Structure formats: C-alpha cells, structure tokens
C-alpha cells in the first residue's frame, strides 16, 4: 500500500455504525419478531434482506437511534467513549450535553447526535455515574434533519424517570434557549492543558484505529454485553461499592428474572441462543442452565426459542 493511501485512510471518516451480526437477536433466531432498528430508522438506512441486516451508508443521517433501540448492542456507534465523556463531565455542576451535528449549540460535552441517548439504561448509567442531573440541549433539534430523535428521547427520559433510583439524577430535555442557562466551564491553566492533551490523545487513538484493518466478524458463539449494560455494571460496581446490600437490591430491581418450568428438557439450546451470555451452561450435565441476571437484557429470545416453554423471563420495569 502506498504511504499516501494510509493518510487518506486515516483522514477518511470512519463508518458511524458498527454492526455486530452475532449479537443481533434476529440474526441468531430468524423467527424473532425484533424489528427495532429498522422500524426506528427515520431514513430507511437499515434493511433486513435474505442475508441479514444491511446498512446503507449513503442513506444514514447518523441519528444513532438504532444503537439506542437495539436490545442486544448489535448496532454500536463507533468512536464513542462514554467513559471519556463521563470524565469530562464530572467536574461540572450542571452538565449540558450537546451534539456535533449542530456545532453552534452550547454544551459541556458533545456526542455525534443525542439520539444515542434514547436508551433508558444508558441514561441511568450516565446519571448514576455522575450522581446528579443532566440536561440535553435540544434547542436546534427541530431545524435538524435528525428531528426524529425527539419523540424516542422523550420516551426514554420518561422511562428513566419511572425507574429512577435515589442516587441517580434526572434527565431534562431543553428546547428553549432561554431555559438553557449555560455556564461556561472555567478552568485553570493546568486543567486547560490537561484537557487539550487528553482530547488530542483521544483523537490520535481514533485516527490510529482507522488504520487497523477491521477484525473479522466475531463468531456468533462469542457473547458480548451491549455497551450500555457494560457501562451500567461498571457504574453500579463503583457507585454502590460502599453499600453492598444496596447493590444486591438494585440488581434485583434492575435486571430481569428467570423462571424455569418442569418442562425444561435441559437441552441447553437457550444457552446457545442467548446473545449476551445471561444463560450459562449448567454446572453439571443434565441440570437446568445457570442464569446471570445482570447479563440478561430481557430480549426474551430464549423464551421465544424454547419449544418446551421451559422458561420465562420476567422484566421488571
């Protein structure tokens, strides 16, 4: 390869979206009724064909609603790090999040589009980690091509409010510039250079990543948690470390339960069909599969799959 093509490759924008087919519930089980991503997509960029889920880069407007709607994390926004985002927001009293599609809007941190936050679990993880409320700057959304994010965002915020726990803050959607009350973050000279250093380092890492050839699609048997659940588990671990009793309690409250029936013939088919590894091989052959609630995303694929109706997933919401 010519050196010039390396530069081009590094400068070319990375695909907004990563599709991990092995995590997609419909890819795993053709009879699954899941249509979340292509039903929510406002620009019809996602389509289900005979060979599976297809994404049309030319149609995609980058609202990232599909990543928020996918229960299994099969669609992920590339180059988005919520851990880095949280680090930037920790020092701010009243954090406001804005987007990069509308650069004239104000905010303490930016995401490519706020549509990615239309996921109650992600909102919970972010507010739990910060321990305070966040506000989303939607003042320019109505003029934007991605205005479709407003309704799902409102729904997600409402769901977040319903299951809000004491330590997590609220999420407020701001449509009116007057109500924004934006306080520019002031920082010392040292903080400024630290910020500059961190951001350029992150940008460098992103550019370096583009030079890597995409790794082969992981085998369908490799189980992976959706990014929002990974973040939530990390946050829960840290925030509730001091009060282990609370940790157990909130886990019981947050995550689904499994009920096994006598009809289970211990074929372990559900262990195979589960996209996240919530169902685990039984401790000894011929026993009922084990269950890890914190890995369960409540997609109920196992329940749809089991012909014996040997199990049921109860989602608390």
């Amino acid at each position, binding site marked *: 390869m010519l050196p010039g093509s390396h530069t081009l490759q590094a400068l070319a924008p990375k695909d907004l979206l990563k599709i991990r*087919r*092995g995590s997609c519930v*419909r*890819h*795993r*089980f*053709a*009879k699954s009724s899941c249509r979340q991503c292509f039903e929510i997509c406002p620009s019809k960029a996602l389509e289900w064909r005979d*060979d*599976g889920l297809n994404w049309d880069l030319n149609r995609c407007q980058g609202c990232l609603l599909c990543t928020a709607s996918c229960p299994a994390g099969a669609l992920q926004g590339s180059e988005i790090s919520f851990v880095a985002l949280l680090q930037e927001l920790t020092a701010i009293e009243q954090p406001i999040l804005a987007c990069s599609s509308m650069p004239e809007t104000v905010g303490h941190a930016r995401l490519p589009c706020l549509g990615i936050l239309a996921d109650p679990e992600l909102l919970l993880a972010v507010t739990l980690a910060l321990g305070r409320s966040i506000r989303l700057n939607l003042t320019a959304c109505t003029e934007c091509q991605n205005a479709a994010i407003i309704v799902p965002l409102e729904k997600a915020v409402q769901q977040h409010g319903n299951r809000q726990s004491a330590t997590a803050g609220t999420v407020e959607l701001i449509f009116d510039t007057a109500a924004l009350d934006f306080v520019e973050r002031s920082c010392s000279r040292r903080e400024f250079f630290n910020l500059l250093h961190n951001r350029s380092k992150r940008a460098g890492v992103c550019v370096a990543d583009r030079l890597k050839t995409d790794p082969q*699609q992981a*085998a*369908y*048997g490799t189980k992976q948690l959706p990014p929002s659940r990974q973040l939530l588990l990390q946050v829960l671990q840290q925030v509730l470390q001091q009060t282990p009793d609370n940790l157990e309690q909130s886990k019981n409250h947050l995550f689904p339960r499994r009920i096994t029936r006598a009809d289970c*013939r211990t*074929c*372990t*088919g*559900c*262990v*195979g*069909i589960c996209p996240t590894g919530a169902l*685990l*091989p039984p401790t000894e*052959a011929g026993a009922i599969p084990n269950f890890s609630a914190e890995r369960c995303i409540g997609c109920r694929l196992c329940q749809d*799959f089991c012909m014996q109706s040997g199990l049921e997933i109860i989602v608390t919401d």
Partner: protein
Amino acid sequence: MSKKYGMVIDLHQCVGCGACALGCKNENNTGDRADGQSHNWADFVMQTTGVFPQTRYTQMPVLCNHCSDAPCVMACPVTPKAMFKADDNTTLHNQDRCIGCRLCQDACPYSQLILDETSNQGKNYSVISFNLHGKSTTARWQDKSELIPGCTASGAQVAAKVGSVPPDLNNYQSGDYQPVRAAGVVEKCILCQHRTTAGLLPACVEACPADARIFGDLNDPASAISKALKANSKSVQRLKEDEGTEPNIYYVRSYNDPTK
C-alpha cells in the same frame, strides 16, 4: 449440470469390520462418546434377530444422509444459516455462525438430542453431535491423571510429547470447517469436503477394505454410483424414506443374503 454427491453402500460387500468408522475418526479428529453424544460421524446400526441356532446379525453403516430436503438446514435459525447446502448438494456446517441451539439435532430424523445406553449396542445413533458448552472436545488429551501413577503416561503428557492436541491430529484445511471443533457447537459429517474438493475420496470410502462404499456424482449417469444404483434398482433403499427428506445415501442388496 451441478454435482450431486451421494454414496451407495453395498450391504452385501460390507462385512461390518468398522474400518469406515475408524477411518473417519482418524481423518476428522472426532472426540470420544460422552454425555449422550457419540461424536461418530460414521456409525453403525446393529441388529440381532431370531433364536439360537436360527439367528441373524446385521451391522449397517450409517452416516449423515446429506438429504436434498434437509430438515437440519431448515431448522437452523441463524442468518446466514450455519447449516447449509453446498453447491455439490452436501450438507455443510459453519462453526463460526453456529450458536449451539441444537435445533438441527432435534429436526434431523437420524439424530437424537441425547443418546441413551441402547446406542452402545447399536440400537440408536446420532449423525449430528453436540459439543457441550465449556467442555473441551479433546479433554482426554488435557487430562493429567495417569492410569498407573508413575508408570503410564497421562493424556496431557502424550500430547505434549507429540506436540499436538489430539496427538494424532489431522490438521486439514477445509472451507468452513476446523479440524477440531469448538465447544458449544454441533458437528457432523461434511462428506470429507476437504478431500473431495482435492480430488480424493472421502476417508470412509478409502478405508473400506471390501469396496462396499461407492462415492460419486448422482447427476452423472456414467459415474460408478449411478451405475451401481441402476444395476441394483430392485434392492435400493434409503433410511427413513417416509420422512420425505430425500436422503442421498443409498443402500443396495442385503447384508447376509447373497441371492438378493
């Protein structure tokens, strides 16, 4: 016309020696019988009838029938299918896409989810086997226990000395198949795709000392298999034909009646 691979097993030629099954195990590195799974891509149905001294014994080789209308392929829930029909009509399996749900095993008329004790006497068999989650398919060669402590070598020692697991590893290159399959997926006969694409015969066919197995293209009227089918058209039978799966493994003549 595209190829349509199949096999004729001449039961009159077959002496039930088991060389086909051994050849297969050697070629495809299949594991030991365990946890209700035979891991035998080539197996036998054995039957003893009558009362002594008027007894009859038959030993019939069985393998994946590579059905034209394969229920295992239809049952596979994954997109693109992990169990699929190849251009040469063989039923192949992709290990990377297989999620180990075992619907194929359940759908196949020639397979069982769990084999019971009767399979040891050849009363039952399974052409699709499942490798248990979290359990190595070559566990025997990782086992450090010695049969006679301080005297015999353990499986792990043998594997270490030879430098491969299993020690008799046949490290072939096949389109979609790994020479040793992973845990948590099913596995089955691929009609030695890695050999047939290289112009060789399947291992079971080559191993048969009695030339009872004829492998070839059913679409080619000049092939040995087509000729054998034509010559024995009166005695041709397929297993569980009433299931409507259109198997491509044919049995001709009879095990111990030379007049047929």
